[in-house]
């Protein structure tokens, strides 16, 4: 951590557009804990400690880090679903911190989420059509049935899937539904929290292809969170490595991967087993060796 100053935006590359899709300035998020001692208040959890970055329009931005490092917290703040303890977030140049729920409509229209668990991210009691249409209903758009059919087609499902319930679909199909829902209000930014971690490899490839296609076609800005470096490497242009609530390293994916500068990044990359390295004789002990 000593290698990177915290708080300052780490994005250093040339800006591609006049306004960044997402601009994060020095956010912290502290969760209170119930007290365990009579004398002292409960120890606070610093889920984010001075995180900052900018994501230009159209970029595919990856965030990697291990469990509990604050990735989901960060995403919730980006989406205006949680408030930072300090710091600020701007979406398309508009400040969202401190806004009330009602004033966040532009975020809801511009930014949508895709989640990890294909099981719990779809309401089991709603028809797929209603699920996909939910953002449309909430934002008061009309012409829903057609749009739903269009969206389902776009993610490779048949239009009559709208009348079924989520449990009637496989994990990969569910993740497609999730993506269709995210695309419904024609957002410019998609934020995906571990969208393929729960999927089998074969399905993972299908979903990753789909995401890549859609991002290209619709020229979306993508924020992609994963604990799996190789997935991020495949999907993203830039990556930020998070550790214990901080961003310890950021840069173009290839560069971070090939030439990690922070010791944590190095350790992370070393620990990832890959087929190629394994076949060339890298053992479990080697993975563990820092």
């Amino acid at each position, binding site marked *: 951590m000593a290698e990177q100053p915290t708080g300052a935006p780490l994005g250093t590359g040339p800006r591609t557009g006049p306004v960044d899709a997402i601009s994060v300035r020095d956010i912290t998020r502290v969760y209170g804990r119930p007290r365990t001692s009579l004398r002292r208040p409960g120890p606070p959890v610093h889920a984010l400690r001075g995180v900052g970055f900018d994501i230009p329009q159209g970029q595919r931005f990856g965030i990697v880090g291990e469990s509990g490092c604050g990735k989901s917290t960060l995403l919730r703040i980006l989406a205006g679903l949680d408030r930072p303890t300090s710091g600020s977030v701007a979406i398309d140049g508009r400040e969202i911190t401190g806004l009330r729920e009602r004033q966040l409509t532009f975020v*809801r229209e511009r930014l949508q989420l895709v989640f990890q668990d294909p*099981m719990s*991210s779809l309401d089991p009691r709603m028809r797929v059509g209603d699920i996909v249409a939910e*953002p449309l209903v909430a934002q008061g758009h009309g012409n829903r049935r057609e749009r739903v059919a269009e969206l389902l087609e776009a993610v490779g499902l048949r239009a*009559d899937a709208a009348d079924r319930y989520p449990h009637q*679909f496989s994990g990969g199909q569910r993740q497609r539904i999730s993506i269709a829902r995210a695309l419904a209000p024609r957002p410019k930014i998609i934020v995906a929290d571990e969208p393929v971690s729960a999927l089998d490899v074969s399905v993972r490839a299908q979903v990753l292809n789909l995401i890549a296609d859609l991002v290209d076609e619709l020229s979306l800005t993508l924020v992609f969170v994963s604990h799996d470096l190789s997935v991020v490497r495949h999907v993203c242009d830039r990556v930020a490595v998070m550790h214990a609530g901080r961003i310890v390293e950021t840069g173009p994916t290839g560069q971070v991967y090939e030439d990690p500068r922070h010791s944590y990044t190095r350790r992370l990359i070393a620990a990832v087993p890959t087929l190629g390295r394994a076949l060339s004789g890298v053992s479990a002990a080697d993975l563990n060796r820092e």
Partner: protein
Amino acid sequence: MSAPDIEATGASAAPAGRRRRRPVTGSLLVGGFIVSAVIGMVLLSFVWTPHDPTLVDPSVRLQEPSAEYWFGTDKFGRDVFSQILMGSRTTLFVGFVAVGVAALIGVPLGIAAAMAPRWLGELLMRGNDLLLAFPALLLAIMFAAVYGAGTLVAMVAIGIASIPHFARLIRGGALQVMRTEYVIAARAAGRGPFAIALRHVLPNVSGLVIVQASVGFAIAVLAEAALSFLGFGTPPPTPSWGRMLQESQELLSIAPRLAVFPGVAIAVAVLGFNLLGDGLRDRFDPKLEDRR
């Protein structure tokens, strides 16, 4: 009618044991049957009873069961079978009032406590737990003292006493629902808290509500019997199984049937609601239950 790849991933595409609908169990069948029978009796009592169940006829008092009087008559010469039929109304009414009060207050309370900020939710639940300090019968007796003995009063009291059970259970379920990603997705889609409560939370805790309701029904029927026994329940001459049982006592050794019919009716109805509750519990996700 649909794409083969969708067809292929049928009902059990979900990982085993997660949200698999279980088959209809024996309890569900038997419970459902008994409860339908009680409802059937109620409906029947509106169109037909063999005799007027409140008609006192001293000339036919304490008749043994016969073709005319299927279950015999009581000491007032009233037809026992007709009273049992009419009494089912009280039973159902009792359940509806008690469960209705408990659910109408307890369910929104539980959902609100789950969706409110943590401290408020805790406060609501603490207040709710305080209600536990006033057991059903205690409330019923106190209510009867204030508003006079009566089925409605007693059952409102039972209902109020059942609120904490509903609220606790529903809050537990709602908390789990609130933690799911589809709720976060709904928020991100721009849904307000009210819409989320109505469209996501309520449907997903409805299983719990139904289970608790059927158990609440059973409890209410038993409570009505106990209150009638103490003289705080349904006032005469409205037939009620609980009061029939109480009235039968003095004739227990010469006309035990007067106790047997309402006693069995109560037990069977309670059994039915309990079984239904058990069966439904098996069908709905049992893991949603809050473990304090």
